[in-house]
């Protein structure tokens, strides 16, 4: 360590950057801008994917049964309810709960226009919710024709939350059946659903008479403590017929996310946006380093004439790129945090800084700066020490 410190030289890269503060600021502004753009796009992308599974996260289940014909939360197919009961035969299964899941046409009580809303029907006695305060609210659903309305639903469903808070009796129709809003919950919208409502199995089946009573869309399974979910999944898969699919809760969440990631162009669009940020950053850093090398070409040539190796000078440019990456990343990260806070506040989208995204963007900025310095180096080869006399 001591010899390393003693072996150090004049920090030429750092001095080249810091003694030209305007150029440095332009470069850092460019890199930060590119970084913020990447944080923004990737944040939106992940936030939207996360939002698509808010409803999936509601349930406190270890395993989930769905039909293999289900494509996503907006196209859930039914499977026989007795499959869920059959899982009780497995010693690791502690309890099960059926859930009905589907889109319904909600009539806006103000404008009388219909709009599709995601409805979940479950057993109000044993709702399997993660959030205990939600479980308390389900008591009111034991009465038929009562629902809980998601107050984060889009305003197109009508001023339900305001009316409810004013103490009015909020009633409307679904498929010709009268229903009454008996409480509010906060879930959030997603790609597939502009709004959500929670109700009991009984009410759900009344509202969708075309559905067969023996079919459910989702089966929740709770395991005994200490059971290995992966093992039970395999056991159940081999024991149950092919008309159901067994997933872990995480698998259920991934199933939904994957649909939006690979089945739609949303992921592509936001990834493209992030790539644009990357390209813009590359251009800016390349421009700055290229002008820097060009301006100092006679000085680089002088160093070569003095006996410095070309590789030493290439190292100077690489280090310049590295310092730019580090210094540009810090403001980009801070601005990203601020922006996420702002977006969360304004859109209720679950956007936040996570370690993997912070690393991804940091890596992208590093690659961006290194790539640009590699390109700018080509200019350095033009430095001919024989020309400086």
């Amino acid at each position, binding site marked *: 360590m001591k010899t390393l410190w003693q072996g150090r030289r004049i920090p*030429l890269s750092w001095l080249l950057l810091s003694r030209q503060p305007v150029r440095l600021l332009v470069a850092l502004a460019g890199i930060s801008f590119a970084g913020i753009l990447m944080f923004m796009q990737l944040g939106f992308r992940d936030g939207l994917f996360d939002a698509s599974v808010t409803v999936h996260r509601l349930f406190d289940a270890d395993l989930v049964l769905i039909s293999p014909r289900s494509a996503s939360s907006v196209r859930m197919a039914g499977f026989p309810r007795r499959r869920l009961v059959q899982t009780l035969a497995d010693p690791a299964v502690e309890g099960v709960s059926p859930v009905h899941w589907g889109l319904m046409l909600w009539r806006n009580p103000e404008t009388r226009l219909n709009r599709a809303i995601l409805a979940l029907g479950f057993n109000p006695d044993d709702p399997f919710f993660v959030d205990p305060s939600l479980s308390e609210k389900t008591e009111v659903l034991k009465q038929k024709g009562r629902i809980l309305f998601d107050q984060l639903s889009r305003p197109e469903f009508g001023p339900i939350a305001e009316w409810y808070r004013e103490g009015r009796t909020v009633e409307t129709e679904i498929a010709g059946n009268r229903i009454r809003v008996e409480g509010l919950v906060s879930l959030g919208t997603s790609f597939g659903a502009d709004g959500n409502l929670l109700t009991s199995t009984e009410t759900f089946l009344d509202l969708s008479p075309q559905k067969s009573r023996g079919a459910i869309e989702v089966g929740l399974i709770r395991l005994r403590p200490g059971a290995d979910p992966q093992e039970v999944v395999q056991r159940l898969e081999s024991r149950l017929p092919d008309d159901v699919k067994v997933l872990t809760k995480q698998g259920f969440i991934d199933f939904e996310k994957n649909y939006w990631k690979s089945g739609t162009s949303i992921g592509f669009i936001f990834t493209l946006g992030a790539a644009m940020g990357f390209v813009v950053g590359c251009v800016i850093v390349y421009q700055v380093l290229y002008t820097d090398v060009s301006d100092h070409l006679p000085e680089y040539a002088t160093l070569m004439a003095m006996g410095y190796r070309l590789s030493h000078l290439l190292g100077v440019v690489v280090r310049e790129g590295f310092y730019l990456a580090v210094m540009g990343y810090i403001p980009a990260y801070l601005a990203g945090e601020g922006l996420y806070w702002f977006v969360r506040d304004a859109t209720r989208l679950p956007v936040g800084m996570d370690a993997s995204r912070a690393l991804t963007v940091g890596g992208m900025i590093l690659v961006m700066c290194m790539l640009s310095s590699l390109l700018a180096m080509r200019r350095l080869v033009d430095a001919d020490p024989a020309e400086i006399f």
Partner: protein
Amino acid sequence: MASVELQNLSHSYGRGEMRRQVLQGISLRIDPGEVVLLTGPSGCGKTTLLTLIGALRTVQSGQVTVLGHRLDGAGRRQRQQVRRGIGMIFQGHNLLRCLTAEQNVQMGADLLPGLGYRARRDEARQWLRSVGLEDQMGKLPHDLSGGQKQRVAIARALAAHPRLLLADEPTAALDGATGREVVELLRRLARDQSCAVLMVTHDPRILDVADRLLQMEDGCLLPAAQ
């Protein structure tokens, strides 16, 4: 051993019709500690000669031996190694604009092998002191006068402990008195190191510092001067 030994050195630029001979059959020997001045009309090949001796250009024909290394047929890497033993002073001072006087000189001292950072910095300071700039160490080239810049350049060239010093019109940008001062300083310091000096100049006022005077015309050394 001679510092520089040239035998029948020739050089030309361009190809075919455009080919122009700039050096023709030059033979020359410079011994350690000797101060040699080279004069001649512009375009006679002085600078080309300097770049060939300075290992900045590939030798085309003839034999060139600098500080015991054969340069004819030497590759890029070998020439770079030889350059470490040669100090160069340019017409424009060619200091690094973003470095202070002290740091510029240390760029020269940094080439010394096996010395710690502090030793190299002290080396740089000592050289600045010997060119009389001890109170200007922290200044950027921008804030120094022409004569001071050229003195920093001399300190930088000497800080790498060269055994041969090449200078191309080091006084061109300086007024008479300052130019004289700089050249005398150069000669004194080079003598102390027993370092050979080859200086190209147009300046008639400094010719008397030379041990030997060479004159060039149309790519040839004038026999009278040898």
